[in-house]
């Protein structure tokens, strides 16, 4: 029995270390395919938080709090990234499809950790009437959209070429060099 406990403790220790070590932005960007995402993040509205601290990948792409959900998503995304990095082909980096998967795993808790008041903008001003209606739907008033934050709020940190033509992305797009120019 003692052996089991020791093995378990060691496993937990190793896992904890591995989780820690693989959660930095630098680690994520150590694979070349992640570089463009990092560049986009740098110019995006999500580059810094309110305290002017850089926002890390994991702050959005993994749940905010540690728990079974965190473990499950971290494991799944990690295994997927390793597999694709090792065996993947060009098709796997088709960004329109990547977006859908990525959005699926953006946990609302991560967004709401910073964006606490959904009826106010980041500048502490009341949001538009339409925004209010949409957020009320999100909260289950006036029917329910049952959509996560990221399913409406697109291109908040990354902006592929094909999304740059949208009027709503004009400011973000203006700051970015062309994707083709080797981002």
């Amino acid at each position, binding site marked *: 029995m003692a052996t089991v406990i020791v093995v378990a403790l060691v496993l937990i220790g190793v896992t904890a270390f591995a989780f820690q070590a693989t959660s930095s932005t630098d680690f994520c960007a150590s694979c070349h395919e992640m570089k463009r995402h990092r560049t986009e993040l740098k110019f995006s509205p999500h580059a810094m938080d309110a305290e002017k601290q850089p926002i890390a990948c994991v702050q959005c792409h993994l749940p905010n709090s540690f728990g079974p959900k965190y473990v499950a998503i971290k494991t799944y995304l990690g295994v*997927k990234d390793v*597999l*694709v990095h090792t*065996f*993947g*082909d060009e*098709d*796997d980096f088709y960004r329109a*499809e990547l977006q859908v*998967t990525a959005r699926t795993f953006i946990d609302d808790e991560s967004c709401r950790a910073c964006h606490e008041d959904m009826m106010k903008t980041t500048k502490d001003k009341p949001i538009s009437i339409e925004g209010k209606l949409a957020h009320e739907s999100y909260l289950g008033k006036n029917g329910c959209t049952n959509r996560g934050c990221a399913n409406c709020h697109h291109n908040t940190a990354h902006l592929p070429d094909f999304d740059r033509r949208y009027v709503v992305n004009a400011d973000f797009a203006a700051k970015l060099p062309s994707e083709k120019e080797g981002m």
Partner: protein
Amino acid sequence: MAISRRNFIKNAAAASAFLALGVAPKAMAAGPGDKVDNWVKGVCRYCGTGCGVMVGVSNGKVITVKGDPNNHNQGILCLKGALLAPVIYAKERVTKPLIRKNGELVEASWDEALDLAASKFKEAIAESDPDSVAYYGSGQALTEETYLASKIFKAGLKSNNVEGNPRLCMASAVGGYVSTFGKDEPMGSYNDLDAATCFFIIGSNTSECHPVLFRRIAARKQNDKNVKIIVCDPRRTNTSRIADLHMSMKPGSDLAILNSMAYVIVNEELDDYRFHNKYVNFMTNDKEKVDFEAYKVFLADYKPEDIEELAGVPAAQIREAAMIFAESSATTSLWCMGINQRIRGVWANNLIHNLHLITGKIGKLGSTPLSLTGQPNACGGVRDTGGLSHLLPAGRLIKKQAHRNQLEEQWGMPKDSLNPKPGLHTMALFQAMNDGKVKVVLTLCTNPAQSLPNVLKYREGLEKCFNVAIEAFSDAISLKYADVVFPPAFWVERTGVFGCTERRYALVEQAIEPPGECRPSVNILIDLALRIGVDPALIPYKNSDDIWDEWRKVSAMTPYNFEGITRERLKKESGIKWPCPTEDHPGTDIRYVRGEDPNIPLDYPDKYHFYGKPDGRAVVWMRPQKPAAEPAGGDYPFTLTTGRVIDHWHTATMTGKVPEIARSFPNAYVEVNTKDAKRMGINHGDNVKLTTRRGDMTFKARVGDVCEPGLVFVPWFDPKLLINELTIDAIDPGSKQPEFKICACQVEKV
């Protein structure tokens, strides 16, 4: 096999779904379309495009509507057509005869209602003369209904007061075609839209009023980059989104612009001399025949630079438009109410035809002046069967004795027994009701209390007159003035024929039984006529099939030849274009051209033959510029114009019953230009009061760049905000069509 992310995710999803449900992924759920028992062929109930529809019936109920792949629309429907089904089951349907007792419409038996209506007709005719009764029909009635009603009144009751709402929308186009070519109705067809390399769209918001044709034009442009589209309209509507050139003209300057385009064509020597030298007569406004040189002299007043200010269009744009028009290999012109609803609508029509005649862009695939119609059976049923006060069936005129005699013979009447005096045109008819001269009126499938211009003026007459209405919807404003209401079978609840813009006649087949005590309008008309005392030998029909067969015979031997369009063929084919003289004739795409038009013998020496004119030549009329009846200026600095929106159709008695449309577009609004709005401090959504010389009304503002500065637009569908209380009832002296499109108004923020 390489493990890719895509496969990884796909397999993971499948695996977990399998784990979760213990079953293989479910097949897609069956759509509501799968439950349809049978599909019945028909024609859309709304506009003059005349799209073929397939009506999906399940357990005796229409559950869905889709496009007919074999008709000209190739399966495509616009949003109104796709959502047609719920209209049939509107709770506002009239299902029992109603008569007015103590000011209220109450349910009555058929006998009671028919006897009451018949007695009023008999009384009026006995007391004064047949001219004291009238029929006011509709471009939405079936061909058979209009033919029958026209025969009952003209032959049975000897009253030529047979009119219809096409007078408000199509009369100027009729006048244009008849004065230029001698015969009514377009010579081209929708096939021209697939071959044209230039589209000249003037006074038409095709995109919202004829969406399926707009789609066809857009598809043409998409397939051939070189296709050019010119839009001439004081509003920059959705139609202009596909335009290469948008000419923002001032309202009322259309005649000048059209003459100016002719000036450019003639002076740049882009005219087709061989064509107009052989097939065209030039005529002054006083019907004096002149030569081409005189026409050039007439055009000298319309140099683009000289009319620039009047038209509000830069001279360069007029020149460009004229060059594109004349230099393109095939040009199709399209116009609608912007041209027709003018006090010189006929002239404007003539001037469009002029452009085609001087350039020879006519009678060739892709080259045609094609007037768009607003109602599903105005171009067809009303114009062809003679459902207007000056007409007899198949292009014959009441004032011509020979024409009357032909009909008397065909209808088995004594010679010279038809009333030789043309009846009252629409506006005169309603004025006569005001004056008490017309005492009883039968209205069929129309809503004049909303659709007449300056409508408040004519309500007195509607109240005074004994008003018998055949109307399907109890909330139509006109029913406020009705004394007897008969419930008709609606749309696919009976069988009959609609004729659309391109001379195509198609059958609307009965798909379901009418609700309650509703009956087909032809049967209502026959019963009513018999009780009034019309000779039963004149109307020996059981149903609309019998009437159609008679109409075929009446049209035979005329250039409007329907003889080959039998009921059996209509059941099989999705529409046939007349002239169609024999049962094996495929129908006619292009008229006035040898080899195409069956009215021209194959051994005729010339390629073209405008047989409507005595010498076979079409006419280029020299029509001068004429401003609107009530141009903006002085105390009324703005121009008010009205029109349609894509969601609603006419008076919204039908579209208002579709939940999607009723909710997306519940109210009329006023469109104001951004600059005007800024100057007057009007914001989007503010209340704005419009005042014309006839009244005032308040609307919510929509600020944008659709209207030109100085112009405001209000859609006319809304019965609660009835813009026709403000419009003017000035009419074209030729066609008697009112000038809905232009009147002067004040705009004020309230």
